[in-house]
C-alpha cells in the first residue's frame, strides 16, 4: 500500500474515533475555562495517552489542540477574558460585539473563520511537510542540527521572555536538567546521586505537567479574585448577512496570510499572529475606526490569523523537530515516548504519518466547527462552573495522569516539585517554555555538538560547518541581541518587553486604544 492509503487506514479505527471525541470534549472544555491553556490540557492528556498507539494518541492530543482553538473564543467574546492566550485578540472586537447584542454573530463568525484558518494551514502542512523534511534530512548533519536546536531555543527565549537574560537562564536551566542521568556516549552517571530514579533523567511528562499544569493552578490559587464581568447571555442573531460576509473577505485573506507565516516561525503562536493579523486588517480596512468597537472585520482578522498558525506550527515541529509553539513542545515529548522522534527523518521514513495527522486535524476541525455552531447556549452555562470544582479536578487529574505514566510516586513528586518551581518562575518573570525546550532538546544538542567537535579536527572548518549552520547560529545571536538593542535604544518606558511586544509596537498602541474604548463603553453600557 502507498503512504496515502496507509495513513487513511490507520485512521479507520474505533479507538481513533473515540480519541477524536474525547479530544473534542476536552479541548472545548479547556478552551472555554479561562486559565486552563491548551498546553496544560495536552500536557495532562499526555499522561493518559501513553498507553495508546501513536495514531490513537495523536487523535486525542491534536484534537485537543484544534478544539481548544475554538472553545477559547467563547469566554473571549462573552466575558472579555481569553480562554487561552491564542484568543487574546478575539476580545478586541468579540466582546464589544457581544455588548452590542451580537454575541451569537461573533461566536458564529469566529468559529467559521477559525475553521477556514486551520484548513488553509493544513494545506501548508500537507504540501510542505515532506519537502521541508527532505531538505532538512539531506542538508542537516550534526552541525546544522546543533545550530537548529540553538535557533529554536533562542527564538523561544526571545519571544516568550520579557527579559532576555531571564529567558537565557531559563533555557540554560532546562538544558542543565537535560544533563541529569546516564551520559549515553560513555555510560558515565551525571548528577544521579546514586538514585535509580534519576538514571534516565527527569520524567519529561512530570516536568511539563508540573510547569504548565500545576504551576498554572498554583498561580490561580494565589491570585484568584471574584470574576469582574458577568457573562453575556443574550446572544442575538447567529448568522452574518450577505453584506457582512462580503466585508469578511479582505481581512480573512490578509490575516490568514499573516497566520500562515507566523505559524512557520518556531515558538511563535496564535497570540502573536492574532494581534498582528488584527492590526494588518485594520490598516487595509475601509472602516478602521470600527476596529476595537465591535467590528466584524476585526474578529474575522484576529481569529483567522491565530487559527492559521496551527498548520505551520505543526510543520516546523514534525519536519524539523523544533516546536512551533508550547503545545507542540509537549507533543514532541509524547511522541518521543511513543518511539516516534519528530525531525527530518520522520516523514521521509513514515510519510503515512503526514496523511494521518492531516486527516486527524481535518476531522477535528470539522467536528469542532459543527460543535461550535450548535453548542452556543450550553457554553454560556459552562462559564458559570465554580472555580473550586475546576481546581480540584485539575489537581487530582494531574496527580493521577502523572502517576499513570510510570506507576511511581516518585514521578508524582517530581511533578509537584516542578509545579512549585514553575509558579516561582512565573511570579519572578522566568518563562517556562525555554525550560521545557532545553530539557527536550538538550540531549540532541549535546549529541550533535559532540559529533561536530569530533569531526572538526579531521576536516577544514567550512567543510564541516556549512553556511546553513552558520546562518542559523547568526540568526540565533540576532534573535537575542535585537531585542536588547531595540530596548536599549528605545524610550525608558518601553524597556522590559518581549520580542513580540517590541515588534508589535504599533499594534500594541492600536490595541491599547481599542481596549480603552471597550472599557469606556463597558462602564457606560448596561449589562445585557
Amino acid at each position, binding site marked *: 500500500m502507498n503512504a496515502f492509503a496507509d495513513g487513511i487506514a490507520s485512521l479507520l479505527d474505533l479507538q481513533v474515533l473515540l480519541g477524536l471525541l474525547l479530544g473534542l470534549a476536552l479541548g472545548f472544555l479547556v478552551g472555554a475555562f479561562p486559565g486552563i491553556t491548551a498546553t496544560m490540557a495536552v500536557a495532562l492528556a499526555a499522561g493518559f495517552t501513553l*498507553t495508546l498507539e501513536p495514531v490513537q494518541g495523536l487523535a486525542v492530543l491534536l484534537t485537543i489542540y484544534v478544539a481548544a482553538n475554538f472553545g477559547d473564543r467563547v469566554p473571549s467574546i462573552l466575558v472579555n477574558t481569553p480562554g487561552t492566550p491564542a484568543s487574546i485578540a478575539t476580545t478586541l472586537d468579540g466582546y464589544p460585539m457581544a455588548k452590542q447584542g451580537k454575541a451569537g454573530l461573533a461566536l458564529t463568525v469566529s468559529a467559521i473563520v477559525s475553521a477556514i484558518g486551520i484548513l488553509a494551514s493544513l494545506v501548508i502542512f500537507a504540501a510542505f511537510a515532506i519537502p521541508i523534511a527532505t531538505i532538512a534530512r539531506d542538508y542537516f548533519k550534526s552541525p546544522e542540527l546543533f545550530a537548529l536546536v540553538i535557533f529554536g531555543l533562542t527564538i523561544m527565549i526571545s519571544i516568550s521572555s*520579557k*527579559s532576555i*537574560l531571564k529567558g*537565557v*537562564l531559563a533555557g*540554560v*536551566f532546562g538544558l*542543565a536538567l537535560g*544533563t541529569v542521568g546516564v*551520559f549515553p*556516549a*560513555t*555510560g*558515565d*552517571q*551525571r*548528577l544521579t546521586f546514586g538514585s535509580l530514579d534519576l538514571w534516565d533523567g527527569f520524567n519529561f511528562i512530570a516536568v511539563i505537567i508540573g510547569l504548565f499544569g500545576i504551576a498554572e493552578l498554583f498561580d490561580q*490559587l*494565589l*491570585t*484568584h*479574585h*471574584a*470574576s*469582574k*464581568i*458577568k*457573562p453575556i447571555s443574550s446572544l442575538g442573531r447567529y448568522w452574518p448577512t450577505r453584506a457582512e460576509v462580503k466585508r469578511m473577505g479582505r481581512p480573512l485573506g490578509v490575516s490568514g496570510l499573516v497566520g500562515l507565516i507566523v505559524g512557520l516561525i518556531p515558538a511563535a503562536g496564535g497570540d502573536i499572529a492574532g494581534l498582528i493579523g488584527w492590526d494588518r486588517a485594520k490598516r487595509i480596512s475601509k472602516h478602521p475606526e470600527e476596529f476595537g468597537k465591535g467590528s466584524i472585520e476585526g474578529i474575522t482578522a484576529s481569529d483567522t490569523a491565530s487559527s492559521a498558525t496551527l498548520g505551520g506550527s505543526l510543520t516546523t515541529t514534525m519536519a524539523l523537530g523544533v516546536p512551533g509553539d508550547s503545545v507542540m513542545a509537549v507533543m514532541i515529548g509524547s511522541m518521543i515516548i511513543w518511539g516516534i522522534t519528530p525531525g527530518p527523518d520522520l516523514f521521509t521514513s513514515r510519510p503515512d504519518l503526514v496523511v494521518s495527522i492531516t486527516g486527524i486535524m481535518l476531522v477535528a476541525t470539522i467536528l469542532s466547527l459543527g460543535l461550535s455552531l450548535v453548542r452556543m447556549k450550553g457554553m454560556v452555562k459552562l462559564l*458559570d462552573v*465554580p*472555580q*473550586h*470544582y475546576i*481546581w*480540584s479536578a485539575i*489537581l*487530582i487529574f494531574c*496527580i*493521577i495522569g502523572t502517576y*499513570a505514566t510510570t*506507576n511511581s*510516586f516518585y514521578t*508524582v513528586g517530581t511533578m*509537584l516539585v516542578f509545579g512549585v518551581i514553575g*509558579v516561582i518562575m*512565573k*511570579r*519572578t*518573570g522566568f518563562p517556562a517554555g525555554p525550560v521545557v525546550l532545553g530539557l527536550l532538546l538538550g540531549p540532541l544538542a*549535546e549529541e550533535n*555538538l*559532540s559529533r561536530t*567537535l569530533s569531526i572538526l*579536527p579531521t576536516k577544514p572548518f567550512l567543510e564541516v560547518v556549512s553556511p546553513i549552520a552558520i546562518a542559523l547560529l547568526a540568526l540565533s545571536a540576532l534573535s537575542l541581541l535585537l531585542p536588547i538593542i531595540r530596548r536599549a535604544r528605545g524610550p525608558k518606558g518601553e*524597556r*522590559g518587553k518581549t520580542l513580540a511586544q517590541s515588534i508589535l509596537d504599533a499594534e500594541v498602541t492600536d490595541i491599547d486604544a481599542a481596549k480603552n474604548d471597550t*472599557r469606556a463603553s*463597558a*462602564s457606560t453600557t448596561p449589562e445585557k
Partner: protein
Amino acid sequence: MTETRSETGDEAVVSDTADADIVAQPSRRLEIVAAAVALVFMAVYLVLVLQIDLRRETGAGQIDARSWPTMLGVLGVVIAAWRLVYAFVRPPADRDDLERLQKGGMRRLISTIVLTVVYLALWQVRSIVAFGYNIELFVFITPFFLFALLYVYGARSWKTFVLFPVITTAFIYVLFGMLLRIPL
C-alpha cells in the same frame, strides 16, 4: 459596576475594569532575590558537574560527560551574575502580565501543597488489612482529599462535599483502575 458570578458561594460586586487593583507591582527585592537564587543554583550545579566521575578518558576533539554540563554551568553562572547586577542597577521590570497576590491566596496554595503531600504519603501505603479484608486505600482517601480541597477552595455546600468527591473518585477508579489497569 456589575454583579459577579459566584465562585465560592458568595456573591461579590466589583468594578468592571480594576486593572490597577489586580496587576502585580514591580519589585526590586524580588528581582534581586530571584537573580541571587539563580546564581546560587547555577554555581552549585557547576560545582557538582565538575565532580562527575569519568570512567574513561575521551579521544582528542571529543567531549566527555563533564564538558557540556560544564559549559552550561559556566554560562549559567555568568548570566545569573549579570542578571544580579542588572537587578541592583536597573529599575525593576514591569509585571503587568501577572496578577497581584490576593488575600487568602497563599493560604490556599500552602494548604493545597500540604494536603497533596499528605495524600501521596497515605496513598503510598497502598492497602491495609482490616477485618480480614485487604482494603485499597485509594478509594477511601481520594474522596477525603477532594473534600478537603473543596473546603480550602471555599465550597460550603454539603451536596458539593459529598457528590463531587464520590463521583470523581468513582470515575477515576473505573477509568484508570479498571479500564486502563493502572495499579491504584
